[in-house]
């Protein structure tokens, strides 16, 4: 069973020979970038560089997927935000939004999706990157992409500060904005599907229980999230960072094929709540364990994830590119040693 079959079988609910180890979020490494002679700041704007880089985590370490893009600004940019890729930065700086679209409460009502959205910003570049990645390693691994969740996208196109207060003071207004965001995300997801992705992760990072109450999550966040996920025809994964134990049931209610959680989630408890057949992906700490931890810590964390009951060992966030190669190797070695035992 190769990595692709393993991951696709898992999504289908069919038997796998062992727990897969992959991600639906960014997982490029500095080792991979350097091998190709690229610069981090350059790969966001060049489909070939993006796809080449994304393939290296599989080629160098046997990681069981290929995922593009690398940053989180694709949809906001296509909606009209100006982004900063920090072209001159020496180290690794992820692109951010330089100019918001909505500057005040009134602006929330006038926001619309631009005509020809699927040709705006880097959406065409994304289609190309997915095609290239698919042609390169698509027979060996599942190829994935991601979109943001509606609330997280809304937090990019307007001041997060205002969005949070208004979700309390004027939930109807926010709900309308989230619905527009949902429509934009659906359009983006459909383009990625056309290009051939096998699965799409929906990253609703801003709606963690560290920030919003489970009650607001249910009333405000869930409906547009459900809308996006119901329109995704490939396999879907819903990811939320931070504390999520109180909302895992709602996350499942949103209708994804699988949910993804990070290290603040108690997996054993989530597994108890959601039952044996639910697909729960997680929850390796992508920085403190993978980057800053020892090989032994990486190995013991992989084992703990499996013992707690994850369906796939997967990092809680983007893998930070400076991850030491020996830690990537340790993770993949441990998954083959321990992943078939349960």
């Amino acid at each position, binding site marked *: 069973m190769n990595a692709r079959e393993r991951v696709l079988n898992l999504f289908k609910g069919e038997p796998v020979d062992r727990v897969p180890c992959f991600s639906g979020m960014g997982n490029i490494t500095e080792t991979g970038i350097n091998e190709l002679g690229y610069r981090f700041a350059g790969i966001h704007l060049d489909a070939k560089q993006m796809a080449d880089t994304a393939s290296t985590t599989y080629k160098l370490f046997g990681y069981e997927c290929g995922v593009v893009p690398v940053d989180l600004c694709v949809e906001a940019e296509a909606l009209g935000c100006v982004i*900063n890729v*920090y072209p001159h*930065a020496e*180290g*690794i*700086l*992820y692109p*951010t*939004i330089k100019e918001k679209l909505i500057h005040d409460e009134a602006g929330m009502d006038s926001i619309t999706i631009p005509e020809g959205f699927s040709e705006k910003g880097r959406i065409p570049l994304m289609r190309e990157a997915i095609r290239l990645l698919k042609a390169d390693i698509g027979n060996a691994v599942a190829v994935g992409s991601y979109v943001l969740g509606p609330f997280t996208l809304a937090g990019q196109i307007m001041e*997060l*500060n205002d969005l*949070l*207060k208004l*979700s*309390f*003071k004027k939930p109807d207004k926010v709900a309308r904005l989230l619905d527009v965001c949902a429509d934009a995300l659906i359009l983006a997801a459909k383009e990625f599907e056309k290009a051939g992705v096998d699965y799409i992760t929906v990253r609703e990072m801003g709606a963690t*229980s*560290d*920030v*919003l*109450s489970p009650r*607001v999550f249910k009333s405000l966040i869930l409906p547009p999230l459900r809308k996006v996920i119901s329109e995704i025809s490939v396999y879907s994964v819903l990811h939320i*960072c*931070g504390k999520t134990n109180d909302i895992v049931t709602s996350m499942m209610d949103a209708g994804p094929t699988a949910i993804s959680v990070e290290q603040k989630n108690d997996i054993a408890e989530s597994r108890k709540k959601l039952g044996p057949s639910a697909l729960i992906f997680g929850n390796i700490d*992508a*920085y*403190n364990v993978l980057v*800053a931890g020892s090989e032994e810590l990486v190995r013991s964390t992989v084992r703990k994830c499996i013992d707690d009951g994850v369906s796939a060992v997967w990092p809680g*966030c*983007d893998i*930070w590119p*400076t991850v030491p190669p020996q830690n990537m190797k340790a993770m993949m070695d441990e998954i083959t040693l321990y992943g078939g035992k349960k």
Partner: protein
Amino acid sequence: MADDAKKKEVLEQLRNGVIQYDEDACKEGATEAIEAGLDANEAIFDGLVSGMEEVGRLFEAQEYFVPEILMCADALYAGLDILKPHCKQMDLGVKGSVVIGTVEGDVHDIGKNLVKMMFDVAGFNVYDLGRDVPLDRFVDEQLKTDSELVCLSAMMTTSMVGMPKVIEKIKEKNPNCMVMIGGAPTSRDLADKWGADGYAEDASNALKEAIKMVAFLKKLRDEKAEKK
């Protein structure tokens, strides 16, 4: 000097105004405090800050979440803006200035703004560099202002890793300067490893840490008052 019953009533109004995120109540309370001749510092600490302490507790108990905290902060500022011009300069024997900002690559500033608020309350000179701040600017601003504290904030793992560079540069040029780091991905371990003097992992903790600092200043103030 205001009588005790009036004083209690006004302090209670300020405190509740913050807890119930009622900007008007805080404005009214602050105006009444001035008219009744209350000490402005006392109105800030025993009214507004006391309310914010309760907000921190409600956040901890998961009764309040970030939207509520932000609204409470607005209410606090509504009162603070009125009271501040009436504050006597607190003589604490420390200069009390702080450089604060969100590091380059990160555009999230909610936690940073909450900590800034507590420094505003404490009467610090706050040099707020904003968000997405190039690392060298922290170093330059610290040197320029001779601030004794620098606060670095990051919400994303992907931007946090710039922090050790800033800490190293600041400590190299000015070993006595204290550095506090904050934001979801930071930890005590990282703070120790990177040579930071303090850390706060989330809004609640940032608030608590900042309240602790302010409470410490308040203690100094009270001790000074007793000696007089």
